């Protein structure tokens, strides 16, 4: 009975929320702006010019297309709804969120999809659904699945003693690994050894805080594997090693500053410890379980690089693996990447012992969460991106004009705007929003506006550390630390005592140096 009432309420709410969208869509359609089934010769030529690709053929096809210029702002509501749900529910209603986050996500997804289908027609809505899931969501989730499975199959064991030197070294190793196995993978691999090493210490909260700063966030900035925003950039055409070469200086400076500060703080706290463990450094034995997963990790890196080099041009019919509505949906390179990553995932499951995974506290829950939430994020993101692509004249023109001056991007503004939003909303969609605000053309951003792309990338990745909700691994690390008896600060305690006094001055310094 209760279930029936919930379902009924769900449909009533969906209908109520859909009505304004349908109204907005009808208005747009009446104005002749909604669905324009257009000859995509012009569209493709435009894309090719902008991206610098030379299209082999400009096939005439009938891809539905929405023009973001005259869309109502209401269309951005489901996107905001899912992002705010992710940000607010874990803090205000964690129990409800834990049990119903999938339904909440489905709700926002359905609100958008139903309204979109009614407003723009099933042809357009299914086109965007297929394009989004095939072209972006599936490559995205298979990468995260592979990284998560492989990283969860590696376990660092050993009797370590948390001295300032060792703690700094462990955080440094985690920071380095984060770029190659993802912030979640590196955090999962390193957090338990770090906690075990510091079990004897009374003052250890700061160790976990700096671990969140560096391993769970800043460390993931060197490759598209490091953090989801950068992989979305890669899917949109940012070269794999562009990220590495351009992010290295800013990431290096941030890491050196924070590690040096950590060493000083940890040394001060270490000196306050009244009891020291019997075995001090020297007798530490370190062992790694699941070493074969390192080979698989190299396979993931190879698969992603390969997908960017082999048959990777979606505008070239020879490179396209799957076509729908006469439009390339998935390149052969990306399809190969998906197949390789799924194979690696299965291999990792097969070769890793249960003991190793149990030692890491491994479960499939985190990846299921990501899948359920990002399935909605990706589809709801279509509308704000269309609005942003319309530039200063579009419905989100206010945002665009805030980060541009005389038509040129203001890099400082991009860094802080991307960062400020990434601090409270998930950083992956935030990155995409500002990527599109800056024009959305990867080739142009890499060649003509590299500092803007750098500002967006650094803002999205670095400032996820500003709050617990800024990046998914933050919560995971907090949760593991709390279960190990470390009294982590509250949401505001984390900000007031740690992230604002330490990270904000660091980011100001980075702004002065790099932007």
């Amino acid at each position: 009975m209760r279930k029936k009432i919930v379902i009924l309420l769900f449909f009533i709410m969906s209908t109520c929320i859909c009505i304004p969208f349908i109204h907005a869509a009808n208005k747009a359609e009446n104005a002749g702006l909604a669905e324009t089934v257009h000859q995509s010769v012009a569209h493709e030529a435009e894309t090719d010019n902008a991206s610098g690709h030379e299209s082999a053929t400009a096939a005439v096809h009938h891809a539905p297309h929405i023009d973001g210029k005259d869309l109502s702002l209401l269309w951005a509501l489901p996107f905001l709804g899912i992002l705010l749900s992710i940000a607010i529910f874990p803090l205000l209603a964690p129990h409800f969120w834990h049990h119903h986050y999938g339904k909440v996500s489905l709700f926002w997804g359905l609100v958008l999809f139903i309204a979109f289908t009614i407003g723009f027609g099933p042809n357009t809505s299914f086109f965007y659904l297929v394009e989004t899931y095939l072209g972006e969501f599936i490559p995205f989730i298979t990468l995260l699945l592979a990284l998560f499975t492989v990283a969860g199959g590696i376990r660092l064991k050993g009797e370590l003693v948390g001295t300032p030197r060792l703690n700094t070294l462990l955080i440094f190793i985690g920071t380095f690994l984060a770029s190659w196995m993802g912030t979640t993978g590196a955090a999962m691999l390193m957090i338990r050894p770090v906690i075990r090493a510091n079990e004897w210490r009374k003052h250890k909260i700061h160790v976990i805080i700096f671990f969140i700063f560096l391993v769970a966030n800043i460390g993931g900035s060197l490759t598209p594997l490091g953090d989801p925003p950068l992989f979305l950039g890669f899917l949109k055409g940012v070269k794999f090693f562009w990220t590495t070469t351009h992010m290295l200086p800013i990431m290096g400076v941030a890491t050196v500053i924070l590690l040096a500060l950590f060493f000083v703080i940890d040394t001060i706290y270490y000196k306050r410890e009244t009891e020291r463990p019997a075995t001090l450094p020297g007798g530490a034995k370190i062992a790694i379980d699941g070493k074969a997963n390192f080979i698989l990790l190299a396979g993931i890196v190879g698969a992603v690089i390969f997908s960017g080099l082999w048959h990777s041009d979606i505008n070239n019919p020879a490179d396209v693996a799957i076509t729908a509505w006469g439009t390339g949906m998935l390149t052969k390179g990306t399809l190969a990447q998906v197949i390789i990553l799924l194979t690696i995932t299965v291999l990792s499951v097969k070769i890793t012992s249960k003991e190793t995974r149990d030692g890491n506290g491994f479960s499939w829950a985190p990846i299921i969460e990501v899948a359920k939430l990002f399935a909605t994020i990706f589809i709801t993101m279509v509308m704000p991106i269309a609005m942003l692509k319309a530039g200063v004249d579009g419905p989100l023109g206010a945002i665009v004009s805030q980060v541009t001056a005389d038509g040129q991007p203001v890099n400082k503004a991009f860094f802080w705007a991307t960062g400020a939003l990434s601090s409270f909303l998930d950083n992956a969609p935030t990155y995409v929003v500002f990527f599109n605000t800056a024009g959305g053309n990867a080739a142009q951003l890499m060649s003509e506006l590299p500092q803007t792309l750098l500002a967006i990338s650094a803002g999205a990745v670095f400032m996820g550390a500003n709050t617990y909700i800024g990046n998914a691994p933050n919560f995971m690390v907090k949760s593991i630390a709390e279960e190990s008896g470390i009294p982590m600060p509250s949401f505001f305690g984390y900000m007031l005592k740690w992230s604002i006094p330490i990270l904000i001055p660091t980011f100001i310094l980075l702004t002065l140096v790099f932007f």
Partner: protein
Amino acid sequence: MEKKYYELVLEGDYNAINGLLNGFLLGKNHDWTFYFSKKAGVKTETLIEVIADWISMKNKIHHIIMEDVFYKELRKAVEKYNKPLKIKSKFVNLNYIKSAKLIKKAHLNFKAITYGRQHAAEMKFLLKNIPAGIVLQNYKPVEKVVKDVKGVELYAPEHEYTFEASGTLVGNIGTMIDLKQKLDDYPLIEADKIHLKF
């Protein structure tokens, strides 16, 4: 027989007072106990005292918890030193003792939370084995187990196990100060300041 304690309010330089008290103990060859309230986590200061403390550049108000025998011997000695000789020492003077009140009882409120079973067991043990002279009142332990937690989660974290407790510890101030130090060493228990009743 339970030790009795006085709370003294002294005005003067911290080092001078500390030196006087420690010197007195050395001279008398006794190990009577005394605590500076602020350091021991005893709530003392009124708003006026805080303001006076801020305004004052030199002399500060110090609250000191002292064994009654120590206080009585000290008072006797200072009176004896001052009166017959009719001298006004800068450091040994009754005027520096602003007040002295016998402490009847002390209490502190605490709350605790943990998400690990092992830490919960430690906490329960600690609260079950409180020292003689201290009574645990209004003890409210709550244990919660969420069965469908699937390990560590990213976006919807929930702890499989939670132990929460709050309560009030009431009893002798000397024992309470020692217990508070023990609780403060245990990071999962948040102990408030000790409140005194005269």
